């Protein structure tokens, strides 16, 4: 064979324990190899190769030797899902703004590339310089949901880093997790070094400070670090407010297997780890220099977070509970961020993000000003929020000045009035139908309604009310045009930690399936209504991981060993693998997921303080079971959930004053025929 290239070998991975030279601060460090030359020849053999090349507009490619601390920021899913994540982009920007810090990005390789990487000895790599995971000081992973846990283990293993914290040495990266699923990191406890609770901006920089000081104290060109240097770093990290080091805590169980308490076993660490809260969003106007992908991602737009937190008190919603209190960005800051960002990135779409964007106290003026700015241009505006009221239609009319009035999405979440009281979603059927009437009469042609089944106290009557509401909406739709459409999307509810529903039993997949078939049967006569559902099995892994304790960790490890990856993807049905893992590790899924807890039972996240008072959550759970609603505390009296006094702050709203409407939060995003997969649902989360 003429002209055959001598096979290019991947640079050898230095033995574990002999990577210290790469971690030295500054110019003394050995620069790790770039794997680009060996990755590149593989790219013609894998799907969507552009996701692995980096080089996008606004990428920051820092010099290894110029940095004292080096972070690899990771979203443990594919680039197309993870790249738009706002939280990671914020940290990327604020770390790289520090002269002494360097931050690069990594995503999970799809299975085709992973296989080739393992054959050729190519570790988990960064996009900026294709540097190996093992050379970085911190592997900081955002966990917006639970379905990235196996990917996290896989990325560590692929990156030549021991998957267990206890096996890591001083020259291994610190494995740090954050994001919403980090509010119960117990199923990952043996695998992570630390979890960060709450808003990441301030605490990330504090961790960076600690790391930098520790490196100066312990890492030296001429001397090997002391034996307990890593332990010292963990102790220092545990002193940072909001940082939880699982190794310093131990769970104690009752004889019947219920958790009694999780206790601190290391002197000087807090018994209760508080979440971090950035008090003034105005001080953190990020991300400004957003990455512009060169290949398709789930959200391609310039996104501005218009406020953080939510006060609606929807009892199923973890995000709404753990991100309290509400902190709004000023209208003029929003306008400035959007205008500069659109110029800088060239995106033709702007997203105004939050948990319930129409609830910003100045959303009317904000939407009007932006619509004025971009009227007659090719820049479009989107508001991923779906209040079920006429105001939402008005807002959508404003935002769609440049485009076509196609689909509107509303999220009543439950079908019956009683059920909506249980979940504290305050919208009446009359409101909803009036809203539909307004929308269709103003030229909108398609309404999507989002619902859940499997909610606590739900009866078949409540389930059938979903179909009923769908039919009534459809009758209105038809009145305004034969081609008008109504879609009802129904997902299975998964109870989450730090919510009033944290004690409730999750419905089994069979029960969800039965309820979905009730709806399907009830709308059979109305061929114009489209029903979209997820596979009822999909909530099983999410449920197990969201409320599991440390005894679930061996299941995660086993499932990963058996090949589970990308657990949130329709294309990757991993449930059978998980069932095998449960069997192999002798863990009873039903006990963890389908059992209602009582007030006395300790929960695996009791030592992690989201600011919500546990007694208040319990009261709210009891209110839920007696169909009692709770007002939105943005507009009405405080009901002592515990968040604000603990932080000595109040809701930071109403910069322009007086713009108050009864409002309701968002549903799910996604425009495809299927319900969005878990990764898609969470992709834009902060």
């Amino acid at each position, binding site marked *: *064979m*003429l*002209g055959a290239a*001598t096979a290019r070998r991947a640079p050898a991975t230095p033995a574990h324990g002999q990577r210290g030279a790469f971690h030295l601060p500054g110019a003394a460090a050995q620069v790790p190899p770039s794997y680009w030359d060996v990755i590149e020849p593989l790219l013609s053999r894998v799907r969507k190769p*552009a996701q692995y090349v*980096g*080089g996008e507009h606004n990428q920051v490619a820092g010099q290894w030797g110029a940095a004292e601390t080096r972070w690899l920021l990771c979203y443990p899913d594919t680039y197309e899902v993870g790249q738009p994540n706002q939280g990671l982009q914020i940290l990327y920007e604020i770390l790289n703004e520090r002269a002494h810090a360097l931050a690069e990005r990594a995503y999970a390789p799809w299975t085709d590339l992973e296989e080739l990487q393992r054959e050729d000895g190519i570790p988990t790599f960064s996009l900026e310089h294709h540097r190996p995971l093992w050379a970085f000081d911190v592997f900081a992973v955002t966990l917006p949901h639970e379905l990235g846990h196996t990917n996290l283990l896989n990325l560590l293993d692929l990156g030549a880093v021991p998957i267990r914290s206890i096996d890591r040495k001083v020259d291994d990266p610190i494995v740090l997790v954050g994001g919403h699923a980090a509010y119960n990191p117990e199923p990952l406890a043996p695998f992570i070094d630390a979890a960060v609770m709450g808003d990441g901006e301030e605490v990330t920089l504090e961790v960076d400070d600690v790391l930098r000081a520790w490196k100066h104290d312990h890492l030296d060109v001429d001397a090997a670090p002391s034996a307990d240097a890593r332990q010292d770093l963990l102790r220092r990290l545990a002193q940072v407010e909001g940082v939880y080091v699982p190794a310093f805590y131990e769970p104690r169980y009752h004889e019947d297997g219920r958790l009694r308490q999780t206790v601190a076993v290391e002197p000087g660490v807090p018994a209760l780890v508080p979440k971090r809260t950035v008090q003034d969003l105005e001080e953190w106007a990020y991300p400004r220099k957003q990455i512009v992908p060169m*290949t398709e991602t789930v959200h391609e737009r310039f996104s501005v977070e218009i406020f953080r937190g939510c006060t609606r008190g929807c009892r199923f919603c973890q995000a709404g509970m753990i991100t309290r209190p509400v902190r709004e960005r000023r209208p003029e800051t929003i306008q400035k961020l959007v205008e500069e960002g659109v110029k800088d990135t*060239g995106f033709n779409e702007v997203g105004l993000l939050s948990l319930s964007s129409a609830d910003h106290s100045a959303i009317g003026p904000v939407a009007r000003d932006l619509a004025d700015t971009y009227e007659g241009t090719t820049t479009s505006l989107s508001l991923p929020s779906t209040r079920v009221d006429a105001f939402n239609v008005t807002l959508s009319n404003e935002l769609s000045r440049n485009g076509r009035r196609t689909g509107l999405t509303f999220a009543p979440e439950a079908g019956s009035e009683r059920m909506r009281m249980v979940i504290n979603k305050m919208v009446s059927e009359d409101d909803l139908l009036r809203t539909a009437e307004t929308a269709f009469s103003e030229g909108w042609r398609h309404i999507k309604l989002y619902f859940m089944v499997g909610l606590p106290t739900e009866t078949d009557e409540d389930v059938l009310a979903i179909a009923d509401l769908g039919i009534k909406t459809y009758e209105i739709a038809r009145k305004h045009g034969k081609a008008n459409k109504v879609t009802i999307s129904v997902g299975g509810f998964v109870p989450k930690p730090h919510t009033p529903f944290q004690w409730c039993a999750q419905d089994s997949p069979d029960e969800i399936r039965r309820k979905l078939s009730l709806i399907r049967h009830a709308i059979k006569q109305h061929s114009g209504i489209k029903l979209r559902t997820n596979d009822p099995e999909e909530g099983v892994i999410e449920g197990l991981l969201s409320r599991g304790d440390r005894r679930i960790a061996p299941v995660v490890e086993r499932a990963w060993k058996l090949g589970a990856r990308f657990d949130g993807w329709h294309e990757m049905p991993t449930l059978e693998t998980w069932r095998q893992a449960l069997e192999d590790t002798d863990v009873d899924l039903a006990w963890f997921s389908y059992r209602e807890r009582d007030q006395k039972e300790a929960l695996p996240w009791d030592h992690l303080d989201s600011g919500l008072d546990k007694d208040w959550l319990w009261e709210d759970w009891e209110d839920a079971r007696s169909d009692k609603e709770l007002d939105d505390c943005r507009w009405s009296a405080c009901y002592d959930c515990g968040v604000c006094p603990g932080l000595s702050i109040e809701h930071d709203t109403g910069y322009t004053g007086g713009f108050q409407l009864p409002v309701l939060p968002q549903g799910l995003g996604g425009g495809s025929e299927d319900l969005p997969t878990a990764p898609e649902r969470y992709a834009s989360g902060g």
Partner: protein
Amino acid sequence: MQRYRIRWTKQERTRYISARDLTSVWERGLRRADLPIAYSEGFTPHPKVSFPDALPVGFDSTGEYAELTFAAPIVPDRDLARLSDTLPAGMDITTYLEVPDGAPKLARMLRATLWELVWPPVDVTELTELLNRRSDELLASERAEVIRRRPDGDRTIDVRPAMLAIAASTRPTAGGDVCTVLRAVLRNDGPTVRPTDLYAALSHDDIAEPTLYRRVAQGEHVDGGLHEALSTEVVPLVLDVDAEAA
């Protein structure tokens, strides 16, 4: 409305941008450069940027073309340079030409492509000779059928009708070695023949696949090479080692 035809490169990391994603990469670049690109009418307006044909993902190119229509006059030297700067590294605008009314379609100016197949710097003399021998045989034959393997079924392609000229020569590499380069001028009209098909016709199972396929330029076939469409440049079929080294 002002129309410009440009020649641009797709190299380095941008080689992996798919044809499908290319439109948005250009649109964002145009918006960053703040140029008054014209948009199509309708509910979902698209910028008026048209590409004559798609380059397979992973191929290198210094011979991409596009036609841009602007809604307001631009200063091409200044504005197209700014556009070039704002495009991702590896994508550069190298030539432009304003299009007069009534000009023939861009595709009619791009009747042929000069392709380049590059091998690593091994077996250079032997490989170059062998490629030239096989190339002559191909040119002397009436048909040269190869099988193009695709997931949706194999296809038989006759590469001969597309072949206008072909020759192997050598070029110094950045590392100080010399490598074999095969250049071929292929017709763009008629059934598509890709350089991978050409390789299949030449390899006879004893020549390794080239490490790089490059679309060098497009235009008219002339003696000794290709007359590039937007300039007076003649891209040579046979590389002059001394000239390249100098």
